[in-house]
């Protein structure tokens, strides 16, 4: 019957059409991507970690756009491929594999939590793709394929703790996120507190989705510390500061933190809840310097006045990209080994965060460290320590002597 014939024909041609359509874009995509330099940025801009990811996303896109406008890198256009793992580590591994094997990018600038870094570091090493990890972390990564521009406890905690102990006293209580960053940073807290003659009364760890700190607050009160050390991470942990202030504790027991502020907590919380909290980073948006002011002007012009405020993570994602670009210019190629060698000559970049230099033995960043106190949605920078070497990683890692080293060393603190 005629109707059945036409239906069959329709289905057949539809299937053929669909097949053709699906292969078409593939072929076209392959042809166009030939001359560009591909860079991948894998950063969470949604989910609980988005408060950290947005400034990083904004800054690297700004950097690539500016560089392309100025003529590109080695005369070629840079194609930045942005991936959003949505605070889900499984997507990190998927996107890292895609960037390395399908897109074959020249460099991957990725990772926020230490968990995500450790998930993709072996993948990128296996597929010979250069990796820049730009988030502050607990130190100790020793791997020739990775460059870490974020600050480590040997740089920040080492300066923060003596400063606050002089102000506040000798007894500390630690609250930290329950994963490798929190656990290892808590150990560093203990080490530095003990080195300065104090003691850590207790360390408590909280999984990233905990929002109810009621019982913990009472326990802290029972222990009567002089101050709190916080390595809490993520959108859920902000409730700690909120509940702390609700119980009135912010007037009696001060807090120092290595993570507060990097998620723009001081802007999300009210001034009553956040004033007086101390933090140490390689960068604060409120640093007064010509380079910083010029950068911020471009940043807010591009992303709008209500864009995510700039944090150390955002600046280091920017710096990481710039350092890589400098190395490519020096090596005159995007070939991984040549770029690594160029970086290992101790390449520097002067930017909004001051001067950042690659330390060849550890592949970490020698950078300025600042201490700031939260005040009315801003940070008041009270101290600056120039050019702090990453001595915590340097104590365990020497890639010049052992270029094939591939692990993260964990510091061992004698209790």
């Amino acid at each position, binding site marked *: 019957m005629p109707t059945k014939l036409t239906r069959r024909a329709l289905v057949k041609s539809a299937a053929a059409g669909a097949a053709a359509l699906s292969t078409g874009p593939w072929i076209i995509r392959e042809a166009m991507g030939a001359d560009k330099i591909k860079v991948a940025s894998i950063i969470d801009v949604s989910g609980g970690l988005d408060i950290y990811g947005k400034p990083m996303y904004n800054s690297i896109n700004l950097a690539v756009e500016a560089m392309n406008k100025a003529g590109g890198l080695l005369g070629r256009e840079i194609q930045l491929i942005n991936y959003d793992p949505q605070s889900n580590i499984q997507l990190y591994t998927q996107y890292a594999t895609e960037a390395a094997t399908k897109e074959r990018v020249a460099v991957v600038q990725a990772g926020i939590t*230490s968990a995500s870094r450790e998930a993709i570091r072996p993948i990128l090493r296996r597929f010979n793709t250069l990796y820049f990890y730009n988030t502050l972390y607990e130190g100790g990564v020793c791997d020739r394929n990775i460059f870490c521009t974020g600050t480590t406890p040997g740089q920040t905690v080492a300066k923060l703790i003596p400063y606050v102990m002089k102000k506040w006293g000798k007894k500390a209580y630690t609250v930290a996120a329950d994963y490798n960053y929190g656990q290892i940073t808590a150990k560093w807290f203990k080490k530095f507190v003990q080195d300065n003659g104090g003691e850590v009364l207790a360390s408590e*760890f909280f999984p990233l989705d905990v929002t109810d700190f009621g019982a913990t607050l009472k326990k802290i009160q029972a222990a009567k510390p002089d101050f709190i050390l916080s390595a809490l991470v993520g959108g859920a942990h902000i409730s700690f500061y909120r509940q702390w202030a609700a119980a009135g504790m912010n007037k009696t027991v001060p807090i120092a933190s290595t993570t507060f502020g990097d998620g723009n907590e001081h802007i999300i919380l009210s001034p009553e809840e956040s004033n007086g909290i101390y933090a140490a980073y390689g960068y604060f948006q409120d640093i007064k310097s010509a380079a910083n002011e010029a950068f911020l002007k471009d940043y807010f012009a591009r992303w709008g006045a209500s864009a995510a405020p700039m944090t150390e993570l955002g600046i280091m994602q920017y710096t990481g990209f710039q350092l890589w670009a400098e190395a490519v210019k020096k090596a005159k190629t995007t070939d991984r080994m040549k770029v690594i060698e160029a970086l290992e000559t101790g390449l520097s970049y002067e930017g909004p965060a001051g001067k950042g230099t690659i330390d060849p033995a550890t592949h970490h960043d020698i950078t300025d460290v600042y201490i700031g106190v939260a005040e009315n949605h801003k940070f008041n920078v009270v101290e600056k320590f120039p050019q702090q070497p990453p001595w915590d990683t340097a104590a365990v890692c020497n890639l010049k002597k052992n270029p094939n080293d591939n692990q993260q060393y964990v510091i061992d603190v004698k209790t």
Partner: protein
Amino acid sequence: MRGSRAWVDGLTVLIAIAVILLVPQLLELYSVINATIYVSMAVLALSLALVWGFGGILCFGQAAFFGLGGYTYAIAAINFGDSNLPVLFAVALPACFAALLGYFVFWGRLNDVYLGVITLTVALILFKFFNATAGDAYKIGKAALGGFNGIPATPPLNLPWDKSVQLAPEQIWYVAATLLLLLYYVSRCLLSTHFGQVVVSIRENERRAELLGYDTRRYKLLIFTVGGAMAGVSGVLFANCVFVSPTMFSLSYNAQIIIWVMIGGLGTLSGPILGSVLLQMLTAELGTLQWLDPNFVLGAILVVFVLLIPRGLQPLIAALGERTFSGLAALGFRRRKWIKP
């Protein structure tokens, strides 16, 4: 009728084998790895399809066995150095756990919602437990449990007869896809045995099966254990192509498996396999869109599905297929009439 069924089966197996062999040749490494992930999750979907679709057991915590399989494999492989024994452990442990949980639940005569809640709670307990193991103290032998980070450096599978040769991603694809095919046919066979028939009858009406003299608790326990073992296999494959972490136990994985089975078609075996692959591909595609939130689209699709296609995809496709077949047959009949003088 039987003959044509065997013919279709044989053809399907041949096509499946062809696909398995061709995928690494035609697709890039990245797509092969993705395909392996989809196939591993399809095995998980198959396990719930068996337990729920045919056993009538609404297990809201199937991911518990999935996670246990993955963790057992990772811990054992790190400690033993090779993958032969770990694979066996990784199937045995979830099966034992399923047996224990099943005993706990079925001998208590728990049903539908309450069963679902208990299984979900168990999965959540495991999630919270594994999530909190970031400290150094949490080690089993040489393997640190890693807490929230999971165990990223899991040794991959190696050849059973030569422990030094580790499988490359393409070879893991072969293993995974073949396992899926095998387990599908094993499930089909299982369901056609006396045991399988009893299980289905329990799903239909448990009281009636009891009155007919069957100890329904035993049958449910057995099918639940088989499902648990299959989920364990899926965990091993997942550990090889992604990595082991506490999210394997989370609410979202548990809900996803249920969604795959429902969209694929509750009460069928091939439906959930299809449903899981399609939905995973869809979720991955959605993740790359910048302007539309993936949750929004997925949620809308689910709601529309439930309202319009409640029985799932497989019955829909089967119905369409039958209509096409009968249409073709009618056409062929007419043709034959034509050609004959």
